[in-house]
């Protein structure tokens, strides 16, 4: 396992002081490989926290370009990022924050094959994407590669969070929770409002779950967290594997 030098011991001292992480957990983080799909609203806090927390190898995938209307909530980017690929822009900010980590930027929308190949090269997937089709593609890659998935979603004033771990026998996948068939538009209009810090709340929760998993702690599975920013309510719903799930039941 990676030895931490003096600068790293100082940089990560507030982690090492936590008995739940300690030096061993920090070394695990340094040796971890994480794939983040999406460098937008959710991907921003995820990228910043995984970089600052010392996750050693981070791959970011996003084919989109930074626009002015993104800066209201996509805090990993800034004015100098306008017109740049989001994965590249996030990479620069992450390395400025922590030059000891390795960041790969993939400026592409990963096909199912590419997604599976990339998933197999990583210890954890973070779904920070913005559409239902990608969410199901990421889930299929997670199950096929046997790599855990931290899924977050947010729009307007509502957010959702769930952790999936196909290494745990009998545990559910994203498809067990929401089947792919059917209409799922987030709302009646073409573009939706998003409360700026809402993506910060959900993305930060994703980063918390990711760091815990990578540091060697088992996540709570079969639990969907729903957050309503207007009421301030968090609610948690339990769910189990769908015995007829086309994605995970045969896996």
């Amino acid at each position, binding site marked *: 396992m990676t030895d931490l030098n003096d600068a790293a011991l100082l940089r990560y001292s507030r982690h090492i002081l936590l008995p739940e992480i300690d030096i061993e957990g920090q070394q695990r983080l340094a040796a971890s490989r994480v794939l983040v799909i999406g460098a937008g609203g959710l991907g921003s806090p995820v990228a910043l926290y995984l970089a600052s927390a010392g996750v050693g190898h981070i791959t970011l995938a996003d084919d989109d370009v930074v626009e002015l209307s993104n800066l209201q909530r996509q805090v990993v980017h800034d004015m100098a990022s306008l017109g740049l690929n989001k994965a590249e822009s996030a990479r620069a900010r992450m390395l400025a924050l922590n030059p000891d980590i390795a960041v790969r930027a993939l400026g592409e929308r990963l096909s199912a094959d590419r997604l599976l190949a990339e998933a197999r090269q990583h210890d954890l997937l973070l779904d920070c994407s913005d559409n*239902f089709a990608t969410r199901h593609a990421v889930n299929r890659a997670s199950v096929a590669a046997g790599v855990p998935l931290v899924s977050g*979603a947010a729009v307007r004033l*509502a957010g959702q969070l769930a952790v999936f771990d196909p290494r745990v026998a009998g545990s559910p996948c994203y498809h067990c*929770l929401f089947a792919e068939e059917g209409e799922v538009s987030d709302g009646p209009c073409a573009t939706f409002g998003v409360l700026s810090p809402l993506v910060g709340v959900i993305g930060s929760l994703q980063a918390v779950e990711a760091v815990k998993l990578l540091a060697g702690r088992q996540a709570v599975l079969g639990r969907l967290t*729903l957050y*309503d920013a207007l009421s301030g309510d968090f609610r948690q719903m339990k769910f189990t594997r769908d015995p007829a799930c086309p994605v995970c039941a045969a896996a």
Partner: protein
Amino acid sequence: MKLNMVYFARLKDSFGTGQESLETDATSVAELLVELRLRGGNWATELGHGKTFRVACNQELAGPDSALRDGDEVAIFPPVTGG
């Protein structure tokens, strides 16, 4: 009997309410959904066939056959997909 209904995300906006106390004779989730669709308008559209949403009874995901009891909290939520 009385159910404590809770609606999330798009459904909360579409129904114009996040929660309500519902007096009903529905004994299962499927019967409850039939009753809610009969309200028409957005209720019929949002809870119609081909729409993706889930129902949870007392914070556990429930299927159409799940039984309902007086005082249950019944939550209906769609997948949030943005990010």
